[in-house]
């Protein structure tokens, strides 16, 4: 530990530590218990602070920033209500393994535990939803906690960390400071050596006649896209990704079979049933993908993960490699042989031909799938796309083909409505030159709608694609299919005029309702670099297919063409 000669306040030290780590942007909201820190932030020339409208917005922005740049996302809140407003985002980041540092103000140490004004035991509250958290009791401890927090957030399987920072500690002077080598840049941290036998691991793949690679969000965190592509091409193996893994392998690649799972493609889910070898690369056998132990029933199963606790957690596997995905694939690649997999690839081609993603585009109404395909064409697949949660999320996952990693931002594990808009804002701050589109629904949009102000305030060019079905569409879909059309509390009997609302924030808006307006709509919304909202009215009864009903497995997949069978 090295000491600076000059003593500075805890608040000042926090700002300096953030600067040294390379933090350029933070998302936050001030309040009494964090004021000394904000006062120091006022003087910082290196850190830009984005004032949000709700702390939930701040943390989702940090998530969008982190996911799209690979860097640490930082958010700040005051004590009590400010801190508790971060809870959903922390949980979200935990489930999707996003590196986030949350700094919360806390009442002074002498008041802690007395039910003081705006006191909440945020340390206790966030234990189960953070990867690490700490209450900084003395300014002398700050540097140590900070280092620990950043390393834990960024290292291994990333995740959210929280530092609770009492007001008096922000004011307390300290000269204790660790020599800082911390960086928030991607892959700065040492990766543990890969454990397991790469050769044996590769042999199992070599022996397979019908191999399938199953790629998860870990591939994005590990920046392993190039390695995955090399592996797939060398082994001549088709690739399916999870919702979180979209973009880790090009969706347009001939070996891609798209997404698997509850709303994955029929061909991906059928490939899972038919493969004789499945290689899980940084996915976690999530229950929306692998419902039962008989997942990939005819396959030898292999798993690469950086988190040892994931092995055999839900699904037992035959081969394990423990370590960073990028490194692990590099180790197995030399042992991988080509092999003739022509008949398997042909089999996949015919699955794709016979079970395509499908929807009925006759009639005058606008189909969201159609609209998304056109947005894909218009943006040439170059946009960063965030979504909220519901049908629109699944349509976006299905119909916008992701070719590049870090371009798909969605709440996969927690399914957080309200995520989309702030995540898009965070992504735009991190990628000012890219087109950033938030695909949302009329329900989700209203959960963090106040962040429109944050867009306006920063004159940010975020594109909002709002699919309005005047319903909580996904809820409606389930009620229609499994609750005999009892639409209990899923219909909006009041929705605001979204176009006027956007305009009230200085964001141009347009509503379209008929197919004839699609071109005009796409053009309007993507025409320049500024922000815009397009409200697309879609039929309430439009559904997401394919679908594996909840609690069922791959065998029970329902395709668009089976719809008749569902309704007796």
């Amino acid at each position, binding site marked *: 530990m090295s000491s600076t000669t000059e003593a500075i306040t805890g608040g000042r030290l926090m700002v300096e530590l953030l600067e040294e780590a390379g933090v350029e942007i933070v998302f936050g909201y001030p309040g009494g218990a964090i004021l000394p820190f904000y006062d120091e932030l006022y003087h910082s020339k290196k850190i830009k602070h984005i004032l949000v409208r709700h702390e939930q917005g701040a943390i989702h922005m940090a998530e969008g920033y982190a996911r799209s740049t690979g860097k640490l996302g930082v958010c700040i809140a005051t004590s009590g209500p400010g801190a508790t407003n971060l809870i959903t985002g922390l949980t979200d980041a935990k489930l999707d393994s996003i590196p986030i540092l949350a700094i919360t103000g806390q009442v002074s140490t002498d008041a802690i535990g007395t039910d003081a004004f705006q006191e909440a035991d945020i340390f206790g509250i966030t*234990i189960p939803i953070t990867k690490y958290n700490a209450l900084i009791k003395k300014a002398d401890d700050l540097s140590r906690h900070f280092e620990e927090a950043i390393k834990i957030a960024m290292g291994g399987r990333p995740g959210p960390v929280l530092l609770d920072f009492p007001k008096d500690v922000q004011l307390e002077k300290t000269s204790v400071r660790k020599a800082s080598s911390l960086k928030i840049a991607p892959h700065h941290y040492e990766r543990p050596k890969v454990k397991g036998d790469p050769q044996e691991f590769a042999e199992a793949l070599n022996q397979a006649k019908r191999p399938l690679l199953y790629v998860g969000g870990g591939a994005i965190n590990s920046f392993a896209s190039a390695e995955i592509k090399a592996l797939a091409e060398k082994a001549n193996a088709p690739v399916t990704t999870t919702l979180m893994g979209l973009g880790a392998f090009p969706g347009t690649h001939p070996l891609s079979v798209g997404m698997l799972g509850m709303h994955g493609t029929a061909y991906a889910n059928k490939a899972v049933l038919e493969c004789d070898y499945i290689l899980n690369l940084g996915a976690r056998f999530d229950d929306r993908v692998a419902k039962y132990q008989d997942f990939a029933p005819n396959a030898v199963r292999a798993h690469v993960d950086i*988190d*040892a*606790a994931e092995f055999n957690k839900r699904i037992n596997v035959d081969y394990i490699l423990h370590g960073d995905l990028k490194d692990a694939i590099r180790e197995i690649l030399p042992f991988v042989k080509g092999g003739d997999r022509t008949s398997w690839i042909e089999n996949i081609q015919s699955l794709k031909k016979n079970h395509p993603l499908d929807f009925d585009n006759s009639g005058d109404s606008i189909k969201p799938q159609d609209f998304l395909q056109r947005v894909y064409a218009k943006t040439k697949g170059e946009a960063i796309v965030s979504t909220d949660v519901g049908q629109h999320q699944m349509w976006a996952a299905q119909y916008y083909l992701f070719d590049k990693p870090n371009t798909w931002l969605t709440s996969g594990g927690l399914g957080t409505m309200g995520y989309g808009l702030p995540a898009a804002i965070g992504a735009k701050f991190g990628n000012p030159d890219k087109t950033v589109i938030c695909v949302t629904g009329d329900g989700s949009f209203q959960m963090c709608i106040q962040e429109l102000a944050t867009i306006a305030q920063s004159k940010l060019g975020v594109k909002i694609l709002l699919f309005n079905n005047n319903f909580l569409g996904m809820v409606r879909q389930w009620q229609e299919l499994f609750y005999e059309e009892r639409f209990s509390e899923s219909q909006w009997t009041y929705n605001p005029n979204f176009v006027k609302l956007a305009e009230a924030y200085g964001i141009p808006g347009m509503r379209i309702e008929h197919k004839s307006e699609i071109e005009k709509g796409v053009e309007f919304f993507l025409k320049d670099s500024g922000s815009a909202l397009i409200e697309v009215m879609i039929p309430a009864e439009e559904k997401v297919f394919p679908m594996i009903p909840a609690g069922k497995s791959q065998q029970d997949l329902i395709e668009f063409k089976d719809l008749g069978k569902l309704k007796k």
Partner: protein
Amino acid sequence: MKHTLSILVNNHPGVMSHVSGLFTRRGYNIDSIAVGVTDNVDVSSMTIVLNGDDFIVGQVKNQLLKLPDVLKVQDMAYASSVQRELVLISFSITETNRSEALTICNGFDVKILEMTEDSLLIEFSGNSRQVTNVISVIKPFGIREISRTGQIAIAYRNQNSV
């Protein structure tokens, strides 16, 4: 099946909540938990007894190892470790059953800490089965107060000594 986990953790505030929270989150019941600092003041040792099959215990172990403050987790097989628990019992006696009580105490290697006209305060240590046994023998006298520490355990160095 009962498992005894011996866990070394950093001696920081909040670590206990982190560890026990892991069990609550999964709905696993802790049968007993005993914590104390080791010879190193920065390190505490926790002994946790839980009921569960090997899969559950394996999961718990994996999750525990993910906590930054957890240094080591050991699943203690009953046969290769010594397991002890301490119990303090205060119970009623009468003139007529006093000598019977004292005989029982002698037979079980129980330490008598206090004797009054109508009560005995005793201390006993042994494995959890022995402790439970002593409690059941004392019970008919009328237990006034009882306090158990929860089990602690340590592995034998020589795995043949049982």
